[in-house]
Protein backbone atom coordinates (compact mmCIF):
# COMPACT_ATOMS: atom_id res chain seq x y z
CA UNK A 1 0.00 0.00 0.00
CA UNK A 2 1.40 3.32 -1.05
CA UNK A 3 1.69 6.06 1.51
CA UNK A 4 -0.65 9.02 1.17
CA UNK A 5 0.55 12.58 0.90
CA UNK A 6 -0.72 14.67 3.80
CA UNK A 7 -0.39 18.08 5.36
CA UNK A 8 -1.52 18.58 8.95
CA UNK A 9 -1.09 21.07 11.79
CA UNK A 10 -0.25 20.42 15.41
CA UNK A 11 0.68 23.31 17.70
CA UNK A 12 2.91 25.54 15.63
CA UNK A 13 4.29 22.80 13.46
CA UNK A 14 2.98 21.96 10.00
CA UNK A 15 3.69 18.35 9.19
CA UNK A 16 4.21 17.36 5.59
CA UNK A 17 4.33 13.67 4.84
CA UNK A 18 4.33 11.21 1.95
CA UNK A 19 4.94 11.71 -1.74
CA UNK A 20 4.40 15.33 -2.72
CA UNK A 21 4.09 14.56 -6.39
CA UNK A 22 1.80 15.45 -9.28
CA UNK A 23 -0.80 12.67 -8.78
CA UNK A 24 -1.24 13.79 -5.16
CA UNK A 25 -1.12 17.59 -5.37
CA UNK A 26 -4.83 17.96 -6.06
CA UNK A 27 -5.63 16.11 -2.83
CA UNK A 28 -2.99 18.16 -0.97
CA UNK A 29 -4.44 21.37 -2.32
CA UNK A 30 -7.90 20.42 -1.06
CA UNK A 31 -6.55 19.54 2.37
CA UNK A 32 -4.56 22.76 2.51
CA UNK A 33 -7.66 24.86 1.87
CA UNK A 34 -9.52 23.22 4.76
CA UNK A 35 -6.60 23.53 7.13
CA UNK A 36 -6.72 25.93 10.08
CA UNK A 37 -3.35 27.61 10.00
CA UNK A 38 -1.56 28.22 13.30
CA UNK A 39 -1.87 31.72 14.74
CA UNK A 40 1.58 31.86 16.31
CA UNK A 41 4.03 34.45 14.97
CA UNK A 42 6.54 31.82 13.94
CA UNK A 43 5.66 28.55 12.26
CA UNK A 44 7.80 25.52 11.56
CA UNK A 45 7.35 23.31 8.52
CA UNK A 46 8.43 19.76 9.29
CA UNK A 47 9.16 18.03 5.96
CA UNK A 48 11.23 15.16 7.33
CA UNK A 49 8.72 12.56 6.23
CA UNK A 50 8.30 13.75 2.66
CA UNK A 51 9.22 10.67 0.62
CA UNK A 52 9.12 12.21 -2.82
CA UNK A 53 8.80 15.68 -4.24
CA UNK A 54 8.52 16.99 -7.75
CA UNK A 55 8.08 20.50 -9.11
CA UNK A 56 4.37 20.61 -8.40
CA UNK A 57 4.89 19.49 -4.81
CA UNK A 58 7.65 22.03 -4.29
CA UNK A 59 5.41 24.72 -5.74
CA UNK A 60 2.57 23.81 -3.43
CA UNK A 61 4.87 23.94 -0.41
CA UNK A 62 6.24 27.28 -1.52
CA UNK A 63 2.71 28.60 -2.08
CA UNK A 64 1.78 27.67 1.45
CA UNK A 65 4.99 29.17 2.92
CA UNK A 66 4.48 32.39 0.97
CA UNK A 67 0.86 32.54 2.10
CA UNK A 68 1.92 32.50 5.75
CA UNK A 69 4.75 34.97 5.18
CA UNK A 70 2.29 37.28 3.53
CA UNK A 71 0.31 37.51 6.77
CA UNK A 72 3.46 38.63 8.56
CA UNK A 73 4.46 35.35 10.21
CA UNK A 74 7.94 33.92 10.26
CA UNK A 75 8.38 30.46 8.78
CA UNK A 76 11.17 27.96 8.95
CA UNK A 77 11.65 24.63 7.26
CA UNK A 78 13.31 21.58 8.73
CA UNK A 79 14.05 18.04 7.74
CA UNK A 80 13.61 18.39 3.96
CA UNK A 81 15.94 16.01 2.14
CA UNK A 82 18.72 17.81 0.27
CA UNK A 83 17.63 16.61 -3.17
CA UNK A 84 14.17 18.08 -2.60
CA UNK A 85 15.59 21.24 -1.02
CA UNK A 86 17.40 22.02 -4.26
CA UNK A 87 14.12 21.84 -6.17
CA UNK A 88 12.40 24.02 -3.61
CA UNK A 89 15.17 26.55 -3.88
CA UNK A 90 14.73 26.81 -7.64
CA UNK A 91 11.01 27.29 -7.20
CA UNK A 92 11.65 29.95 -4.56
CA UNK A 93 14.06 31.91 -6.75
CA UNK A 94 11.58 31.79 -9.64
CA UNK A 95 8.70 32.89 -7.46
CA UNK A 96 8.94 36.67 -7.98
CA UNK A 97 8.66 36.15 -11.75
CA UNK A 98 5.65 33.88 -11.63
CA UNK A 99 2.83 36.35 -11.13
CA UNK A 100 4.32 39.13 -13.22
CA UNK A 101 5.13 36.81 -16.09
CA UNK A 102 1.65 35.39 -16.27
CA UNK A 103 -0.14 38.72 -16.28
CA UNK A 104 -0.72 39.69 -19.89
CA UNK A 105 -2.18 43.11 -20.57
CA UNK A 106 -5.54 42.92 -22.28
CA UNK A 107 -6.02 45.31 -25.15
CA UNK A 108 -8.84 47.87 -24.86
CA UNK A 109 -11.64 48.14 -27.43
CA UNK A 110 -10.10 51.10 -29.22
CA UNK A 111 -6.80 49.29 -29.64
CA UNK A 112 -8.53 46.15 -30.89
CA UNK A 113 -10.63 48.15 -33.33
CA UNK A 114 -7.56 49.90 -34.67
CA UNK A 115 -5.78 46.60 -35.03
CA UNK A 116 -8.68 45.11 -37.00
CA UNK A 117 -8.86 48.18 -39.21
CA UNK A 118 -5.13 48.09 -39.81
CA UNK A 119 -5.29 44.40 -40.63
CA UNK A 120 -8.21 44.89 -43.02
CA UNK A 121 -6.65 47.80 -44.87
CA UNK A 122 -3.38 45.91 -45.07
CA UNK A 123 -5.09 42.87 -46.62
CA UNK A 124 -6.95 45.11 -49.06
CA UNK A 125 -3.63 46.54 -50.22
CA UNK A 126 -2.16 43.05 -50.45
CA UNK A 127 -5.12 41.83 -52.47
CA UNK A 128 -4.85 44.75 -54.87
CA UNK A 129 -1.12 44.19 -55.23
CA UNK A 130 -1.72 40.52 -55.95
CA UNK A 131 -4.39 41.34 -58.52
CA UNK A 132 -2.04 43.78 -60.22
CA UNK A 133 0.88 41.38 -60.15
CA UNK A 134 -1.15 38.54 -61.60
CA UNK A 135 -2.62 40.78 -64.32
CA UNK A 136 0.88 41.86 -65.34
CA UNK A 137 2.04 38.25 -65.34
CA UNK A 138 -0.99 37.31 -67.43
CA UNK A 139 -0.41 40.04 -70.03
CA UNK A 140 3.28 39.17 -70.19
CA UNK A 141 2.51 35.53 -70.80
CA UNK A 142 0.03 36.46 -73.54
CA UNK A 143 2.84 38.24 -75.36
CA UNK A 144 5.13 35.25 -75.00
CA UNK A 145 2.85 32.20 -75.08
CA UNK A 146 5.81 29.83 -75.05
CA UNK A 147 6.62 30.97 -71.52
CA UNK A 148 3.37 29.50 -70.20
CA UNK A 149 3.90 26.15 -68.51
CA UNK A 150 1.60 24.16 -70.76
CA UNK A 151 2.44 20.83 -69.21
CA UNK A 152 1.49 21.99 -65.70
CA UNK A 153 -1.55 23.72 -67.13
CA UNK A 154 -2.82 20.59 -68.85
CA UNK A 155 -2.23 18.53 -65.75
CA UNK A 156 -4.39 20.95 -63.76
CA UNK A 157 -7.08 20.87 -66.47
CA UNK A 158 -7.12 17.11 -66.02
CA UNK A 159 -7.11 17.17 -62.22
CA UNK A 160 -9.62 19.97 -61.72
CA UNK A 161 -11.67 19.61 -64.90
CA UNK A 162 -11.76 16.06 -66.19
CA UNK A 163 -11.73 14.43 -62.77
CA UNK A 164 -14.55 16.72 -61.64
CA UNK A 165 -16.85 15.51 -64.43
CA UNK A 166 -18.65 12.77 -62.47
CA UNK A 167 -19.52 14.92 -59.47
CA UNK A 168 -20.55 18.03 -61.44
CA UNK A 169 -22.58 15.88 -63.83
CA UNK A 170 -24.39 14.09 -61.04
CA UNK A 171 -25.11 17.28 -59.12
CA UNK A 172 -26.50 19.32 -62.02
CA UNK A 173 -28.53 16.31 -63.17
CA UNK A 174 -30.11 16.20 -59.73
CA UNK A 175 -30.67 19.96 -59.71
CA UNK A 176 -32.42 19.65 -63.10
CA UNK A 177 -34.61 16.92 -61.65
CA UNK A 178 -35.45 19.04 -58.61
CA UNK A 179 -36.35 22.15 -60.63
CA UNK A 180 -38.57 20.14 -62.95
CA UNK A 181 -40.31 18.44 -60.05
CA UNK A 182 -41.06 21.72 -58.29
CA UNK A 183 -42.19 23.35 -61.52
CA UNK A 184 -44.34 20.37 -62.51
CA UNK A 185 -46.63 20.85 -59.49
CA UNK A 186 -47.39 24.45 -60.41
CA UNK A 187 -47.58 24.05 -64.17
CA UNK A 188 -49.97 21.12 -63.99
CA UNK A 189 -52.48 23.33 -62.12
CA UNK A 190 -52.69 25.69 -65.09
CA UNK A 191 -52.47 22.99 -67.73
CA UNK A 192 -49.38 24.60 -69.19
CA UNK A 193 -47.18 21.54 -69.05
CA UNK A 194 -45.06 22.49 -72.04
CA UNK A 195 -43.64 25.54 -70.24
CA UNK A 196 -41.54 23.15 -68.18
CA UNK A 197 -39.06 23.48 -71.02
CA UNK A 198 -38.76 27.25 -70.57
CA UNK A 199 -38.43 26.88 -66.83
CA UNK A 200 -35.75 24.21 -66.87
CA UNK A 201 -33.92 25.48 -69.93
CA UNK A 202 -33.60 29.14 -69.07
CA UNK A 203 -32.96 28.83 -65.36
CA UNK A 204 -30.35 26.11 -65.80
CA UNK A 205 -28.46 27.47 -68.78
CA UNK A 206 -28.46 31.05 -67.68
CA UNK A 207 -27.96 30.88 -63.92
CA UNK A 208 -27.97 27.63 -62.09
CA UNK A 209 -25.57 25.38 -63.99
CA UNK A 210 -22.69 27.89 -64.05
CA UNK A 211 -23.28 28.73 -60.42
CA UNK A 212 -23.40 25.13 -59.23
CA UNK A 213 -20.24 24.30 -61.15
CA UNK A 214 -18.45 27.35 -59.76
CA UNK A 215 -19.42 26.60 -56.17
CA UNK A 216 -18.36 23.00 -56.57
CA UNK A 217 -15.01 23.92 -58.07
CA UNK A 218 -14.44 26.55 -55.39
CA UNK A 219 -14.82 23.85 -52.78
CA UNK A 220 -12.90 21.25 -54.72
CA UNK A 221 -10.05 23.16 -56.38
CA UNK A 222 -9.90 26.62 -54.80
CA UNK A 223 -9.35 25.11 -51.37
CA UNK A 224 -6.74 22.75 -52.79
CA UNK A 225 -4.80 25.68 -54.30
CA UNK A 226 -4.75 27.51 -50.99
CA UNK A 227 -3.64 24.42 -49.07
CA UNK A 228 -1.00 23.40 -51.64
CA UNK A 229 0.59 26.79 -51.96
CA UNK A 230 0.32 27.39 -48.22
CA UNK A 231 2.05 24.13 -47.38
CA UNK A 232 4.76 24.95 -49.89
CA UNK A 233 5.22 28.21 -48.07
CA UNK A 234 5.38 26.58 -44.64
CA UNK A 235 7.96 24.03 -45.83
CA UNK A 236 10.03 26.81 -47.47
CA UNK A 237 9.54 25.26 -50.93
CA UNK A 238 8.26 28.61 -52.11
CA UNK A 239 11.43 30.32 -50.93
CA UNK A 240 13.45 27.68 -52.79
CA UNK A 241 11.45 28.42 -55.95
CA UNK A 242 12.17 32.14 -55.58
CA UNK A 243 15.89 31.67 -55.03
CA UNK A 244 16.06 29.43 -58.10
CA UNK A 245 14.94 32.47 -60.06
CA UNK A 246 11.46 31.19 -60.83
CA UNK A 247 8.52 33.45 -60.13
CA UNK A 248 5.76 31.78 -58.09
CA UNK A 249 3.34 33.70 -60.31
CA UNK A 250 4.42 31.91 -63.45
CA UNK A 251 5.01 28.57 -61.74
CA UNK A 252 1.91 28.33 -59.58
CA UNK A 253 -0.65 31.08 -60.06
CA UNK A 254 -0.81 31.42 -63.84
CA UNK A 255 -1.12 27.73 -64.74
CA UNK A 256 -3.84 27.26 -62.16
CA UNK A 257 -5.79 30.34 -63.22
CA UNK A 258 -5.54 29.65 -66.94
CA UNK A 259 -6.39 25.99 -66.46
CA UNK A 260 -9.55 26.84 -64.55
CA UNK A 261 -10.49 29.53 -67.09
CA UNK A 262 -10.34 26.79 -69.73
CA UNK A 263 -11.93 24.02 -67.67
CA UNK A 264 -14.84 25.84 -66.04
CA UNK A 265 -16.69 26.83 -69.27
CA UNK A 266 -16.30 23.28 -70.57
CA UNK A 267 -17.64 21.88 -67.31
CA UNK A 268 -20.53 24.35 -67.55
CA UNK A 269 -21.53 23.11 -71.01
CA UNK A 270 -21.42 19.55 -69.75
CA UNK A 271 -23.46 20.53 -66.69
CA UNK A 272 -26.02 22.30 -68.93
CA UNK A 273 -26.53 19.11 -70.91
CA UNK A 274 -26.95 16.85 -67.90
CA UNK A 275 -29.16 19.33 -66.05
CA UNK A 276 -31.53 19.72 -68.98
CA UNK A 277 -31.53 15.94 -69.41
CA UNK A 278 -32.62 15.58 -65.78
CA UNK A 279 -35.45 18.05 -66.38
CA UNK A 280 -36.40 16.20 -69.55
CA UNK A 281 -36.75 12.90 -67.69
CA UNK A 282 -39.11 14.41 -65.13
CA UNK A 283 -41.05 16.26 -67.84
CA UNK A 284 -41.75 13.02 -69.66
CA UNK A 285 -42.56 11.02 -66.54
CA UNK A 286 -44.60 13.64 -64.63
CA UNK A 287 -46.01 15.98 -67.28
CA UNK A 288 -46.33 13.75 -70.36
CA UNK A 289 -43.99 15.97 -72.34
CA UNK A 290 -42.13 13.58 -74.60
CA UNK A 291 -38.46 13.96 -75.43
CA UNK A 292 -39.33 15.02 -78.99
CA UNK A 293 -41.78 17.68 -77.83
CA UNK A 294 -39.27 18.86 -75.24
CA UNK A 295 -36.49 19.29 -77.78
CA UNK A 296 -38.79 20.99 -80.30
CA UNK A 297 -40.03 23.47 -77.70
CA UNK A 298 -36.45 23.96 -76.43
CA UNK A 299 -35.36 25.17 -79.88
CA UNK A 300 -38.02 27.85 -80.08
CA UNK A 301 -38.29 28.92 -76.43
CA UNK A 302 -34.74 28.98 -75.19
CA UNK A 303 -32.74 31.41 -77.26
CA UNK A 304 -29.04 30.91 -77.61
CA UNK A 305 -28.28 34.09 -75.68
CA UNK A 306 -29.30 32.41 -72.38
CA UNK A 307 -26.73 29.74 -73.04
CA UNK A 308 -24.11 32.34 -73.99
CA UNK A 309 -24.74 34.50 -70.92
CA UNK A 310 -24.36 31.49 -68.67
CA UNK A 311 -21.25 30.37 -70.49
CA UNK A 312 -19.82 33.89 -70.55
CA UNK A 313 -19.84 34.10 -66.77
CA UNK A 314 -17.91 30.87 -66.32
CA UNK A 315 -14.40 32.18 -67.15
CA UNK A 316 -14.88 35.05 -64.70
CA UNK A 317 -16.00 32.65 -62.01
CA UNK A 318 -12.92 30.57 -62.78
CA UNK A 319 -10.60 33.53 -62.46
CA UNK A 320 -12.18 34.52 -59.15
CA UNK A 321 -11.84 31.02 -57.72
CA UNK A 322 -8.26 30.45 -58.85
CA UNK A 323 -7.00 33.88 -57.85
CA UNK A 324 -8.65 33.81 -54.43
CA UNK A 325 -7.31 30.31 -53.77
CA UNK A 326 -3.75 31.19 -54.81
CA UNK A 327 -3.87 34.52 -53.00
CA UNK A 328 -4.97 32.95 -49.73
CA UNK A 329 -2.29 30.30 -50.14
CA UNK A 330 0.39 32.94 -50.55
CA UNK A 331 -0.93 34.87 -47.56
CA UNK A 332 -0.19 31.96 -45.25
CA UNK A 333 2.69 32.54 -42.92
CA UNK A 334 3.25 30.95 -39.55
CA UNK A 335 2.33 27.34 -39.20
CA UNK A 336 -0.07 24.50 -39.70
CA UNK A 337 -3.18 26.14 -38.26
CA UNK A 338 -2.76 29.04 -40.66
CA UNK A 339 -3.08 26.61 -43.56
CA UNK A 340 -6.47 25.45 -42.31
CA UNK A 341 -7.67 28.98 -41.64
CA UNK A 342 -6.72 30.37 -45.02
CA UNK A 343 -8.11 27.34 -46.83
CA UNK A 344 -11.47 27.99 -45.22
CA UNK A 345 -11.25 31.70 -46.01
CA UNK A 346 -10.45 30.93 -49.64
CA UNK A 347 -13.60 28.83 -50.08
CA UNK A 348 -15.88 31.29 -48.31
CA UNK A 349 -14.42 34.28 -50.12
CA UNK A 350 -14.50 32.74 -53.58
CA UNK A 351 -18.11 31.55 -53.23
CA UNK A 352 -19.06 34.97 -51.88
CA UNK A 353 -17.38 36.79 -54.76
CA UNK A 354 -18.83 34.39 -57.34
CA UNK A 355 -22.37 35.04 -56.12
CA UNK A 356 -21.82 38.80 -55.90
CA UNK A 357 -20.45 38.78 -59.45
CA UNK A 358 -23.41 36.71 -60.61
CA UNK A 359 -25.85 39.15 -59.02
CA UNK A 360 -24.18 42.09 -60.73
CA UNK A 361 -24.41 40.25 -64.05
CA UNK A 362 -28.11 39.59 -63.50
CA UNK A 363 -28.80 43.25 -62.83
CA UNK A 364 -26.76 44.46 -65.80
CA UNK A 365 -28.29 41.99 -68.26
CA UNK A 366 -31.70 43.01 -67.01
CA UNK A 367 -30.97 46.69 -67.68
CA UNK A 368 -29.76 45.94 -71.15
CA UNK A 369 -32.83 43.73 -71.82
CA UNK A 370 -30.81 40.64 -72.63
Amino acid sequence: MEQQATISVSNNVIHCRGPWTLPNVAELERRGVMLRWPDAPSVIYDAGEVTAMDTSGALLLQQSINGLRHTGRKTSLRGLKPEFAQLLQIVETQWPHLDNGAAVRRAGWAERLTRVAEHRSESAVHALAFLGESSVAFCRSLMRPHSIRWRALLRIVELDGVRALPITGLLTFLVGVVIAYQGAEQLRKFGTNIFIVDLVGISLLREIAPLIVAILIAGRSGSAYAAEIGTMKVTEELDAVRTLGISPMSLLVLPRSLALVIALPLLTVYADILGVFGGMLIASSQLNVSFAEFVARFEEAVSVRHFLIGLGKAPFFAAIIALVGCYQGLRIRGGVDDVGRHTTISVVQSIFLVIVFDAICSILTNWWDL
Partner: protein
Amino acid sequence: MMPPLAQTEMPVIEVSHVATRFGQAVVHEDVSLSIKQGEVFAIAGGNGCGKSTLLREIIGLLTPSAGTIRLFGVDSRQLEESDGRPIHRRFGVMFQHGALFSSLTLAENVAVPLREHADVSPRLIRDIVAVKIAMVGLPPDSAAKFPSELSGGMRRRAALARAIVMDPELLFLDEPTAGLDPMIAAGFDDLVLSLKRLLGLTVVMVTHDLDSLWRIASRVAVLGHGKVLGVGTMQELSQSDDPVIHAYFRGPRGRAAKEQAAWNIERHEA
Protein backbone atom coordinates in the same frame (compact mmCIF):
# COMPACT_ATOMS: atom_id res chain seq x y z
CA MET B 1 0.93 0.64 -9.76
CA MET B 2 4.47 1.71 -8.97
CA PRO B 3 7.11 -0.96 -9.08
CA PRO B 4 8.36 -1.97 -5.63
CA LEU B 5 11.60 -0.33 -4.58
CA ALA B 6 13.59 -3.57 -4.66
CA GLN B 7 13.10 -3.78 -8.42
CA THR B 8 14.55 -0.40 -9.31
CA GLU B 9 17.75 -2.17 -10.28
CA MET B 10 15.94 -3.65 -13.24
CA PRO B 11 16.59 -1.81 -16.48
CA VAL B 12 14.30 1.08 -17.31
CA ILE B 13 14.34 0.13 -20.96
CA GLU B 14 15.07 -3.31 -22.30
CA VAL B 15 15.37 -3.83 -26.04
CA SER B 16 15.78 -7.46 -26.95
CA HIS B 17 16.46 -8.89 -30.38
CA VAL B 18 14.58 -6.20 -32.24
CA ALA B 19 14.40 -6.46 -36.01
CA THR B 20 12.83 -3.84 -38.24
CA ARG B 21 12.04 -4.12 -41.92
CA PHE B 22 10.27 -1.65 -44.16
CA GLY B 23 9.35 -3.81 -47.15
CA GLN B 24 12.66 -4.92 -48.62
CA ALA B 25 14.77 -2.51 -46.61
CA VAL B 26 16.23 -3.94 -43.41
CA VAL B 27 16.83 -1.28 -40.77
CA HIS B 28 17.62 -3.44 -37.74
CA GLU B 29 18.67 -7.09 -37.93
CA ASP B 30 19.12 -7.83 -34.28
CA VAL B 31 19.37 -5.02 -31.76
CA SER B 32 19.55 -5.57 -28.00
CA LEU B 33 20.13 -2.85 -25.43
CA SER B 34 19.46 -2.31 -21.80
CA ILE B 35 19.30 1.12 -20.23
CA LYS B 36 19.67 1.57 -16.48
CA GLN B 37 18.13 4.13 -14.21
CA GLY B 38 19.97 7.42 -13.88
CA GLU B 39 22.04 7.07 -17.04
CA VAL B 40 22.47 9.49 -19.87
CA PHE B 41 22.35 6.93 -22.61
CA ALA B 42 23.15 8.02 -26.14
CA ILE B 43 22.36 6.18 -29.35
CA ALA B 44 24.85 7.12 -32.04
CA GLY B 45 25.63 5.98 -35.56
CA GLY B 46 25.78 7.20 -39.14
CA ASN B 47 22.87 8.68 -41.02
CA GLY B 48 20.24 6.11 -41.90
CA CYS B 49 21.45 3.47 -39.44
CA GLY B 50 18.07 3.41 -37.72
CA LYS B 51 18.72 5.49 -34.60
CA SER B 52 15.54 7.51 -34.82
CA THR B 53 13.59 4.42 -35.85
CA LEU B 54 14.79 2.66 -32.71
CA LEU B 55 13.75 5.66 -30.61
CA ARG B 56 10.32 5.68 -32.21
CA GLU B 57 9.97 1.99 -31.47
CA ILE B 58 10.93 2.48 -27.83
CA ILE B 59 8.32 5.16 -27.31
CA GLY B 60 5.68 3.08 -29.05
CA LEU B 61 5.19 5.11 -32.23
CA LEU B 62 6.42 2.23 -34.38
CA THR B 63 6.14 -1.49 -33.85
CA PRO B 64 9.24 -3.58 -34.52
CA SER B 65 8.93 -6.45 -37.00
CA ALA B 66 10.33 -8.86 -34.43
CA GLY B 67 11.63 -8.82 -30.89
CA THR B 68 10.35 -7.01 -27.81
CA ILE B 69 10.91 -3.66 -26.16
CA ARG B 70 10.06 -3.18 -22.51
CA LEU B 71 9.62 0.23 -20.98
CA PHE B 72 9.41 0.14 -17.16
CA GLY B 73 8.74 -3.57 -17.65
CA VAL B 74 5.77 -2.98 -19.95
CA ASP B 75 5.79 -4.17 -23.54
CA SER B 76 5.90 -1.12 -25.81
CA ARG B 77 3.23 -2.68 -28.00
CA GLN B 78 0.77 -2.03 -25.19
CA LEU B 79 1.65 1.65 -24.94
CA GLU B 80 -1.12 2.79 -27.26
CA GLU B 81 -3.70 0.71 -25.43
CA SER B 82 -5.49 2.09 -22.42
CA ASP B 83 -3.49 0.29 -19.73
CA GLY B 84 -0.37 1.92 -21.10
CA ARG B 85 -1.56 5.43 -20.25
CA PRO B 86 0.11 5.65 -16.82
CA ILE B 87 3.39 4.90 -18.57
CA HIS B 88 2.93 7.97 -20.75
CA ARG B 89 3.11 10.13 -17.63
CA ARG B 90 6.44 8.62 -16.72
CA PHE B 91 8.33 9.68 -19.83
CA GLY B 92 8.69 12.83 -21.85
CA VAL B 93 9.81 13.15 -25.46
CA MET B 94 11.50 16.07 -27.14
CA PHE B 95 11.24 15.77 -30.90
CA GLN B 96 13.93 17.00 -33.22
CA HIS B 97 11.99 19.96 -34.55
CA GLY B 98 10.15 20.60 -31.34
CA ALA B 99 6.74 19.45 -32.57
CA LEU B 100 5.14 22.32 -30.70
CA PHE B 101 1.48 22.87 -31.45
CA SER B 102 1.51 25.93 -33.66
CA SER B 103 -1.97 27.10 -32.67
CA LEU B 104 -1.04 27.34 -28.97
CA THR B 105 1.24 29.75 -27.17
CA LEU B 106 4.40 28.50 -25.51
CA ALA B 107 2.73 28.43 -22.09
CA GLU B 108 -0.30 26.59 -23.45
CA ASN B 109 1.98 24.10 -25.21
CA VAL B 110 3.78 23.34 -21.99
CA ALA B 111 0.49 23.03 -20.12
CA VAL B 112 -1.04 20.44 -22.47
CA PRO B 113 0.17 17.30 -20.61
CA LEU B 114 -0.90 18.78 -17.27
CA ARG B 115 -4.37 19.59 -18.51
CA GLU B 116 -4.75 16.14 -20.06
CA HIS B 117 -3.26 13.92 -17.42
CA ALA B 118 -3.14 15.69 -14.07
CA ASP B 119 -5.85 16.73 -11.68
CA VAL B 120 -4.44 20.11 -10.73
CA SER B 121 -5.97 23.53 -10.17
CA PRO B 122 -5.57 26.14 -12.96
CA ARG B 123 -3.48 28.32 -10.66
CA LEU B 124 -1.02 25.53 -9.93
CA ILE B 125 -0.89 24.63 -13.64
CA ARG B 126 0.05 28.23 -14.39
CA ASP B 127 2.77 28.19 -11.77
CA ILE B 128 4.17 24.82 -12.77
CA VAL B 129 4.33 25.97 -16.38
CA ALA B 130 6.09 29.18 -15.37
CA VAL B 131 8.67 27.28 -13.31
CA LYS B 132 9.38 24.83 -16.14
CA ILE B 133 9.77 27.66 -18.61
CA ALA B 134 12.24 29.26 -16.23
CA MET B 135 14.01 25.93 -15.66
CA VAL B 136 14.81 25.52 -19.34
CA GLY B 137 16.17 29.06 -19.38
CA LEU B 138 13.48 30.87 -21.34
CA PRO B 139 12.54 34.42 -20.34
CA PRO B 140 9.10 34.81 -18.71
CA ASP B 141 7.81 37.09 -21.46
CA SER B 142 8.27 34.33 -24.05
CA ALA B 143 5.37 32.42 -22.44
CA ALA B 144 2.74 34.31 -24.40
CA LYS B 145 4.48 33.88 -27.75
CA PHE B 146 3.51 31.44 -30.46
CA PRO B 147 6.01 28.86 -31.73
CA SER B 148 6.37 30.71 -35.03
CA GLU B 149 7.65 33.74 -33.12
CA LEU B 150 10.45 31.79 -31.41
CA SER B 151 13.96 31.13 -32.67
CA GLY B 152 15.17 27.56 -33.29
CA GLY B 153 17.03 27.36 -29.99
CA MET B 154 14.09 28.73 -28.04
CA ARG B 155 11.74 26.30 -29.71
CA ARG B 156 14.03 23.45 -28.67
CA ARG B 157 13.94 24.69 -25.09
CA ALA B 158 10.18 25.07 -25.18
CA ALA B 159 9.86 21.48 -26.41
CA LEU B 160 12.09 20.40 -23.53
CA ALA B 161 9.88 22.28 -21.07
CA ARG B 162 6.85 20.44 -22.40
CA ALA B 163 8.69 17.12 -22.15
CA ILE B 164 9.57 17.62 -18.48
CA VAL B 165 6.38 19.32 -17.32
CA MET B 166 5.04 16.14 -15.73
CA ASP B 167 8.34 15.54 -13.90
CA PRO B 168 8.93 12.31 -15.80
CA GLU B 169 11.45 9.68 -14.78
CA LEU B 170 12.61 9.17 -18.31
CA LEU B 171 13.39 11.76 -20.96
CA PHE B 172 13.88 11.02 -24.65
CA LEU B 173 15.73 13.52 -26.79
CA ASP B 174 15.83 13.19 -30.56
CA GLU B 175 18.87 15.05 -31.93
CA PRO B 176 18.72 17.68 -29.17
CA THR B 177 21.60 19.80 -30.45
CA ALA B 178 21.30 19.35 -34.21
CA GLY B 179 21.21 22.68 -36.00
CA LEU B 180 22.08 24.77 -32.95
CA ASP B 181 25.14 27.01 -32.85
CA PRO B 182 28.04 25.68 -30.73
CA MET B 183 27.41 28.05 -27.83
CA ILE B 184 23.72 27.25 -27.61
CA ALA B 185 24.38 23.54 -28.12
CA ALA B 186 26.83 23.53 -25.21
CA GLY B 187 24.30 25.44 -23.12
CA PHE B 188 21.71 22.83 -24.01
CA ASP B 189 24.03 20.03 -22.90
CA ASP B 190 24.51 21.74 -19.55
CA LEU B 191 20.79 22.25 -19.26
CA VAL B 192 20.11 18.55 -19.81
CA LEU B 193 22.72 17.62 -17.20
CA SER B 194 21.37 20.03 -14.60
CA LEU B 195 17.78 18.89 -15.19
CA LYS B 196 18.90 15.29 -14.91
CA ARG B 197 20.46 16.02 -11.52
CA LEU B 198 17.57 18.11 -10.32
CA LEU B 199 14.70 15.86 -11.39
CA GLY B 200 16.53 12.52 -11.15
CA LEU B 201 15.98 11.83 -14.83
CA THR B 202 17.13 8.96 -16.94
CA VAL B 203 17.98 10.44 -20.33
CA VAL B 204 17.96 8.59 -23.63
CA MET B 205 19.13 10.61 -26.58
CA VAL B 206 19.78 10.09 -30.24
CA THR B 207 22.59 12.30 -31.42
CA HIS B 208 25.32 12.88 -33.97
CA ASP B 209 26.93 15.56 -31.91
CA LEU B 210 30.36 14.26 -30.88
CA ASP B 211 30.87 17.14 -28.47
CA SER B 212 27.72 16.39 -26.55
CA LEU B 213 28.54 12.67 -26.59
CA TRP B 214 31.81 13.44 -24.83
CA ARG B 215 30.27 15.97 -22.50
CA ILE B 216 27.13 14.36 -21.18
CA ALA B 217 26.71 10.74 -22.27
CA SER B 218 27.44 8.20 -19.55
CA ARG B 219 27.12 5.32 -22.03
CA VAL B 220 26.86 5.25 -25.78
CA ALA B 221 25.56 2.58 -28.15
CA VAL B 222 26.76 2.73 -31.73
CA LEU B 223 24.38 1.31 -34.32
CA GLY B 224 25.48 0.13 -37.74
CA HIS B 225 24.75 -2.62 -40.25
CA GLY B 226 21.47 -3.27 -38.42
CA LYS B 227 23.24 -4.24 -35.20
CA VAL B 228 24.71 -2.73 -32.08
CA LEU B 229 28.38 -2.38 -32.94
CA GLY B 230 29.43 -1.44 -29.45
CA VAL B 231 28.18 -0.15 -26.12
CA GLY B 232 30.25 1.62 -23.49
CA THR B 233 31.61 4.90 -22.28
CA MET B 234 33.16 7.22 -24.82
CA GLN B 235 36.63 6.31 -23.54
CA GLU B 236 35.96 2.62 -24.13
CA LEU B 237 34.43 3.15 -27.53
CA SER B 238 37.27 5.36 -28.71
CA GLN B 239 39.63 2.41 -28.09
CA SER B 240 37.41 0.04 -30.11
CA ASP B 241 38.83 -1.86 -33.08
CA ASP B 242 35.57 -1.98 -34.97
CA PRO B 243 36.21 -0.12 -38.24
CA VAL B 244 32.89 1.74 -38.22
CA ILE B 245 33.25 2.91 -34.62
CA HIS B 246 36.85 3.78 -35.33
CA ALA B 247 35.85 5.89 -38.31
CA TYR B 248 33.07 7.51 -36.34
CA PHE B 249 35.05 8.52 -33.28
CA ARG B 250 38.58 8.78 -34.59
CA GLY B 251 37.79 10.75 -37.73
CA PRO B 252 38.93 14.38 -37.86
CA ARG B 253 35.87 15.65 -36.05
CA GLY B 254 35.94 12.88 -33.48
CA ARG B 255 39.53 13.67 -32.54
CA ALA B 256 38.81 17.36 -32.21
CA ALA B 257 35.84 16.68 -29.97
CA LYS B 258 37.91 14.34 -27.82
CA GLU B 259 40.70 16.87 -27.39
CA GLN B 260 38.16 19.49 -26.52
CA ALA B 261 36.58 17.21 -23.94
CA ALA B 262 39.98 16.37 -22.41
CA TRP B 263 40.80 20.05 -22.24
CA ASN B 264 37.50 20.80 -20.57
CA ILE B 265 38.14 18.13 -17.94
CA GLU B 266 41.66 19.44 -17.25
CA ARG B 267 40.42 22.94 -16.88
CA HIS B 268 37.66 21.71 -14.62
CA GLU B 269 40.12 19.93 -12.35
CA ALA B 270 42.63 22.75 -12.24
